[in-house]
């Protein structure tokens, strides 16, 4: 699995275009964090996780690189979870870079633009912002990884968007049809499949082991387990006879 994490890091940081894209995104986030609320600035993390995680398995499969790896003595689940860990490690490095850049901006802005131009920088807020982005990325990456095990190319991102739309539509449909049971069922489905946890509160120590946190753990586990089952059973053809 370690080799798979290492490989993922090389793939992502070995690509100049990817490194530049992540660098620009990190800089924009850092500037925003230095000038406004750091906790909110980290909200752009979902863009970075799309860049990092999209097509993580499907691209390897279509390139044929996956078949060469699977011919080696490595379990399919090791490959899969190696990819997942790789995504999280790359994202953690990205968040670390944002932290560093934010501190630089916070020191640099008053020098360049005069005192009082930068927002009051709180290390705790910065940490909470990064932790929130990371926890949200864990579920987002698990979802993309799940779709990537059976969809082609970057269709995993599209599938995630469709899932969001479908889960958002059903409660509205229940409302429109005046079917309270449909609205309740749809809301329950949405809060279990893609739970929305207020990490800002949880990280402040409120409701740490509450229902939303439990749903989030369940959803991450569910997507990773389904990804493992599908990927272990999937056939991989290559080339032509």
């Amino acid at each position, binding site marked *: 699995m370690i*080799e798979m994490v*290492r*490989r993922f890091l*090389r*793939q992502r940081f*070995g*690509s100049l275009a990817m490194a530049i894209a992540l660098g620009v995104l990190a800089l924009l986030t850092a500037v925003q964090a230095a000038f406004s609320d750091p906790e909110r600035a980290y909200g752009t993390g979902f863009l970075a996780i799309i860049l990092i995680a999209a097509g993580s398995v499907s691209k390897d499969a*279509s*390139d*044929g*690189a*996956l*078949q*060469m*790896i*699977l*011919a*080696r*003595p*490595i*379990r399919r689940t090791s490959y899969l979870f190696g990819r997942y860990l790789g995504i999280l490690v790359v994202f953690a490095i990205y968040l670390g870079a944002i932290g560093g850049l934010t501190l630089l901006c916070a020191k640099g802005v008053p020098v360049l633009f005069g005192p009082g131009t930068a927002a009051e920088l709180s290390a705790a807020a910065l940490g909470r912002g990064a932790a929130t982005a990371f926890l949200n990325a864990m579920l987002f990456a698990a979802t993309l990884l799940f779709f990537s095990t059976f969809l082609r190319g970057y269709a995993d991102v599209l599938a995630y968007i469709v899932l969001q739309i479908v889960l958002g539509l059903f409660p509205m449909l229940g409302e429109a049809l005046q079917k309270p049971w449909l609205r309740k069922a749809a809301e329950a489905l949405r809060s279990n499949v893609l739970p929305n946890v207020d990490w800002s509160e949880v990280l402040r120590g409120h409701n740490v082991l509450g229902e939303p946190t439990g749903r989030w753990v369940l959803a991450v586990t569910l997507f990773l387990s389904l990804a493992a089952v599908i990927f272990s059973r999937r*056939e*991989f*053809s*290559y*080339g*032509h*006879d």
Partner: protein
Amino acid sequence: MISVRSVSKTYGCLGRRTRALDGVSLEVRRGETLGLIGPNGAGKTTLLSCLLGFLRPERGAISIAGLPPDDLAIRVKTGYMPERLGFDRDLTGSAFLAQHWRLAGGDSRETVRQVAAAAARVGLEGDVLLRRLSGYSRGMLQRIGVAQATLRDPELLFLDEPASGTDPIGVAVVRDRILEAKAHGATIVLNSHQLPEVEKVCDRVVFIDGGRLTQTQTLRGESPAPHRATVRVPPDRREQALTALAAAGFTPEAGSDGSVRLSVASEQDLARAVKVLALADVPVLEARSSADLEEMFRRGGPA
């Protein structure tokens, strides 16, 4: 070593189903080099994918040393080179080989030495290994593909068109690596359209067409199939050569290129034919024999 029993595999669904393999059965002995030949779309790559455990047969069974092909105990002994070179193009040559050395279970302390040795064996040395694979030519990619497949001297080697797109020196390098693996006792399955190369390295070839194994021909070892020999003599002595060979029990034919063609059981048989011609005072300009796989290919299997 490798046992394939009545394997069938179909692609597609509903009305668009294509049968890629239809009841294929074959055995590959330990240390044997088996060639898979057949036209495009015959089912060779599908068979290789099943042997590697990437595809699962709908019917029939495949076992390697009594284990399923995707068992990790088999994977540890396996080297594989795909037809499509889907490498990590952003990696350098040495990083790519190092990655596969570690994935194959190699000692990480040995990585640098083993990578350099594997690359040198396929003629890739120095700065070439520090370049990204995206900058490699097709021939260089083939070479590094063979280098990764032969890392750790695998007992099982699956090669899919290993010399495709390489120059004559590259073809010779690939052939030497296959022969080296063979000398180490590896069991090799080779899928290639380069029939002269197949003939040079394989002990046996199987002809696959329309998903079926239509024929098997032994090239080396016990009771090899008759070879086609071509003997070139001066044009004005050809009739004399045909008469002398016929008198010695051969069944010679006049070739369209002015040569004499005959069927020989072995290289000793060819040497006997040359001796017959020498005794008949017919100068022999050239004598060679081959399994005539091209003819087998044209006919869709041995006659």
